[in-house]
């Protein structure tokens, strides 16, 4: 099995703080991998390096054999990475549907002239986008209003929309940053099912998560970070038993 994502010796620092410090791990096609670690361990920073929001100061990021280190976020996105954000980053004034359509931006199918002249091609493309957007919302189990601005939705629904938007990208690699934050138990159970269904679509999922119940249940492999470095890598059970992980992250009675 070849690796879809390979991170080698990745590093980034901010004015002396080494947020990520020589991180190496890889993710195989079709895996569900969780990244865990204490607050400030560098998980989000690592995601940001992979997706081009931070320019790593050292190391390489390789996607499906292609070196994408230092690419702009939009180029990384085009290369096949979709993500969600730890602090929701939806387009608050746009409709739910428009938010999901954003995920399909790279799909094209029309240009400015089509738009100005309202060509059949344009109409076809628009119709397709709308249908697809609905399908993705259905897929994540979203049941709220779709024609109004996303700003008015409660937090949990917004999370769903963000995931739908990321899925609409149809990228092979999906990075989810704390998708379970702010969800209650029942909702987390639904999230668990959703992540599995995403994988069943043939996508590879990497998620950052603090809810151990969810992590243990859903992941095939867990990577543990502390101080910007990997301190453990293995199956949920292995990791849970690892004393270094218990010490740094889980706590004894955890």
């Amino acid at each position, binding site marked *: 099995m070849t690796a879809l994502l390979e991170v080698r010796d990745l590093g980034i620092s901010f004015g002396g703080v080494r947020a990520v410090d020589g991180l190496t791990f890889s993710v195989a096609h079709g895996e569900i991998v969780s990244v865990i670690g204490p607050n400030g361990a560098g998980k989000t920073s690592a995601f940001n390096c992979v997706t081009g929001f931070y320019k790593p100061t050292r190391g390489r990021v390789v996607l499906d054999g292609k070196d994408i280190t230092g690419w702009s976020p*939009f180029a990384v996105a085009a290369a096949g990475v979709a993500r969600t954000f730890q602090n929701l980053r939806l*387009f608050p004034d746009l409709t739910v549907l428009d938010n999901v359509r954003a995920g399909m931006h790279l799909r094209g199918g029309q240009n400015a002239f089509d738009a100005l002249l309202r060509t059949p091609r344009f109409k076809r493309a628009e119709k397709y986008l709308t249908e697809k957007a609905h399908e993705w919302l259905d897929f994540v189990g979203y049941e709220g209003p779709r024609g109004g601005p996303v700003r008015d939705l409660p937090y949990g629904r917004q999370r769903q929309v963000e995931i739908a938007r990321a899925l609409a990208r149809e990228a092979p690699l999906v990075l989810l940053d704390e998708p379970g934050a702010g969800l209650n138990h029942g909702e987390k159970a639904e999230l668990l099912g959703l992540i599995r269904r995403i994988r069943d679509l043939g996508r590879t999922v990497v998620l950052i998560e603090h809810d151990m119940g969810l992590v243990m249940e859903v992941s095939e492999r867990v990577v543990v970070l502390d101080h910007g470095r990997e301190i453990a890598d293995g199956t949920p059970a292995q990791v849970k038993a690892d004393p270094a992980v218990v010490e740094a992250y889980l706590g004894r009675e955890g």
Partner: protein
Amino acid sequence: MGKWVGPAGLLVAVAVPFVDASPYTLNVLTTAAIFVMLAAGLNIVVGYCGLLDLGYVAFMAVGAYTSGILSTALELPLPLTIPAVLVVAVLAALVIGAPTLRLRSDYLAIVTLGFGEIIRITATNLDFTGGPTGIFGIPGIEVGGPAGFYFFCVAVVALAVLGSARLERSRLGRAWMFIREDEDAAEAMGVNTYRVKLLAYVFGAVWGALAGVLFAAHLSAVSPQSFVFLQSALVLMAVVLGGMGSTRGVVVGAAVISVVPEVLRDLGAFRYVFFGVVLIVVMVLRPQGLWPVRRREPERAEVREGVRV
């Protein structure tokens, strides 16, 4: 109701001269029409894409000067200058946009203001632009007197407004709005924000430059006085007053900003005091603009009669 707002507005614009066709009325209407086009163009940049541009009349100046210079120096009929105007406008947009569009909003504002001033002052200082006096004796577009020219303007402006509205509801238009709402998130969706912003600039510039051509034809003269900062501010006000990003609103806003001072003309020295008060009152009463966007689209149930997949 949405469908017939545009045609209804157009009908009103066409009907007015049949009620009153004095040179003054026609002049005010023509000026207003050109102003609507400017506002529609700036709305692409500010309203859709969220780039605060305080020097928008620079593009109008580029259009007006290019067509003015070419038509007087080469004795070309004005419409034949349009290809050159388009080329120069796009170049201007690229030159102004390329180094500055990486800046965030407020810094962009001052830079565009600076470019606006640079263009105006340069036009004042150079000889081939006619110095402070500018270019004059520009041939009009002869389509049947002032009324004919007004109808011509209305037609062009209507197309421009329709065009900008269509752009808004397209992939490019959505990309602009993604950038306006959240640039980082837009990048994560694969939007090449730099290029898409530049495109907003280019479209805005083309609209502005074409309005400049109409302006040159209308006044028969182009001079730096017409491209002062206040003019940029007025166009921006039209956009905001109408409701940023709302095509209909912007048309209404432009009409208000260009017509109200004329209506107040008879107040003499006090007219700008009143204009100022009108602006404050209107905005306090309608903070979102006169006709803001209500971003809503039909729910699926409304489209497919509740059929679920």
